[in-house]
């Protein structure tokens, strides 16, 4: 399969469904570079699938532009957009066998039967399903159907690959294997890809960049590590990974992205944060694995900010041991640490929590 890819630019895209007042997609702007895989991440109802369906041409936008390779495609009907779409339900044609399913798009493009069959076989080999070409979709497992759907979408050499929650119907083990398979095929072919998911792990694992949507708006659009380490808003920090939020007061701007803040629990700190946030509506994010615990009886004077509390809950997930530590009436922090029998804490233990302020991040509360 040849590389046939595109640059996608979504400009001020908006969709308001009939008989609703709040737009489902509200002024979304998104630039996707050639060969990039971008995840649209958000809770259900955030507008991610609506956005994808508008790009695919399955839904008409209320306003805005969808520019593919410099051309606005909003008025182009779906069957002329040449976008490969993988549906959540896979949407394989039940009355056709696997080979017919994969070659359907090629036949629609008026390739000769022989040529279509040859390309379909190549695509099936790519997803390692060549031996099942004569089966019906119903005879395949969920993971195999998923791969057929992927082959069917890719065989037409789409300008964009659009994936709508493609892994949500698979079990956990298979989901992880498919993540890597989809990602490696996508990288090998260099196909520009939009990927809708509500699963933050999937987005962090697969995407070059993540657009986090909430109530139809993009809250942040950045590479995974930036989304995780420097979330733009409280919503992003909460949605991607686990987060502790500390109330702050007396926020004082020191530089572009550095602030001095006062917290009840850890005193005055110098931290980094979102540029230009409203000082009266900000919270400090501390990721659970950035916190370290020491038993109070063995605690040493730390140069780092420290606070003492009581372990009120523990949970064990194999490699990670989590604690909830109550510092005062309003602050209960979650601590994740790699399992270590020597430092095993129990309910009721008094512990000192510390963290490196350089690893905390001040975010906007909206």
């Amino acid at each position: 399969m040849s590389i046939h890819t595109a640059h996608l630019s979504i400009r001020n895209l908006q969709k308001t469904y009939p008989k609703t007042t709040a737009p489902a997609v509200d002024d979304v702007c998104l630039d996707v570079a050639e060969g990039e895989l971008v995840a649209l991440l958000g809770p259900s109802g955030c507008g991610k699938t609506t956005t994808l369906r508008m790009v695919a041409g399955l839904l008409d936008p209320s306003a805005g532009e969808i520019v593919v390779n410099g051309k606005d495609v909003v008025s182009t009907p779906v069957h002329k957009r040449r976008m490969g779409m993988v549906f959540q339900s896979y949407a394989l044609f039940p009355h056709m066998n696997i080979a017919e399913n994969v070659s359907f798009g090629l036949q629609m493009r008026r390739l000769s039967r022989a040529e279509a069959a040859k390309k379909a076989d190549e695509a099936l080999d790519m997803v390692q399903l060549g031996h099942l070409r004569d089966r019906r979709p119903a005879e395949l497992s969920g993971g195999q159907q998923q791969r057929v759907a992927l082959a069917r979408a890719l065989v037409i050499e789409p300008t964009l690959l659009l994936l709508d929650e493609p892994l949500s119907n698979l079990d956990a083990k298979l989901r992880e294997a498919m993540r890597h398979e989809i990602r490696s095929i996508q990288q090998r072919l260099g196909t520009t890809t939009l990927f809708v998911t509500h699963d933050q792990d999937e987005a962090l694992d697969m995407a070059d960049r993540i657009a986090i949507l909430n109530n139809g708006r993009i809250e942040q659009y950045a590479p995974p590590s930036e989304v995780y380490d420097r979330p733009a808003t409280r919503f992003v920090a909460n949605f991607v990974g686990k987060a502790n939020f500390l109330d702050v007061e007396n926020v004082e701007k020191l530089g572009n992205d550095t602030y001095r803040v006062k917290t009840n629990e850890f005193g005055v700190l110098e931290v980094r944060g979102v540029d230009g946030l409203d000082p009266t509506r900000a919270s400090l994010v501390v990721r659970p694995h950035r916190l370290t615990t020491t038993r109070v009886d063995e605690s040493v004077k730390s140069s780092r900010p420290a606070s003492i509390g009581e372990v009120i809950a523990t949970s064990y997930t194999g490699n990670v041991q989590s604690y909830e530590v109550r510092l005062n009436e309003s602050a209960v922090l979650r601590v994740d640490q790699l399992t270590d029998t020597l430092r095993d804490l129990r309910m009721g233990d008094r512990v000192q929590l510390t963290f490196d302020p350089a690893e905390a991040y001040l975010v906007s509360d909206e």
Partner: protein
Amino acid sequence: MTLTQMGSRKRTTGFRSRRRWELFGLLFPGLLGIFVGFVLPVFVMFRMSLNTHGTGGQLVESVSLGAYRDALTDPFYWEVIGNTLVLGLGCGAAATVLSYPLALFLVRTTSKWKGVLIALAIAPLLTSAVARTYGWIAILGDQGVINDSLMRIGVLDAPIQLSNNLLGTTIALVEILMPYAILAMISGFGRISPSLEEAAGSLGASKLKTFVRITLPLSLPGVFTGFLLVFVLAISSFVTPRLLGGGRVFILATEVYNEATQTLNWPLASALSVILLVVFGLMIAVYQRLIAKFEG
């Protein structure tokens, strides 16, 4: 296999056989009802068809194929069988074609009136076929709405024959039976996911190609069911052919009635009924073949 496994297996077999008896017990009243109300009458009818009709009109107990010979050697009855098939196939085809878009719309609409619309589509079933047939007589008759209007505006000089024949009977039966076709297709179409059509579109199929390659083939089982239902109801219909046919439409159902109540030739009436049953049976066999082909 270890001892405990054998023990547990034995237990489950015992459990299963007890369960089988329980299931049979639960099914028994229904089976009895079917036997008494359906199997037995059909058997009695079949037995009756083997009797003979005496010259004086009396019933002669015998085992003979005389009634069948009478039915199948008389060209009149071949015409009756032909008429019956024409009526059944014609009604089936017309009702299916007319109901298809309605059923597809009713399945797909997201309107909040969907439930009301479906109820409206099948509401004609609330009126008896007799009343609806008289309605059609008023429309299709020589002085009916159609002929009267066309003659008044000068399109026709003399009325065209729309009643007292097979055409009028077919028109009325199609309307009367359409609700069944719509219901059968609605249940048949439910399993066609709209995402299949979206997938076809994204793969480059136009709306027309999507319909021909995806929607239509997947809807065929529902279409066959609707067709079969209308066919079966049409060839067994009696009221409409009798009233709208004006005694000039001869089909198996009306002839069975004539033989049974007027000529009092019960063996022949029974033989014609058995022939009608055979037509049903053949149609159901064809239907099962088609369903197996398109659903497999």
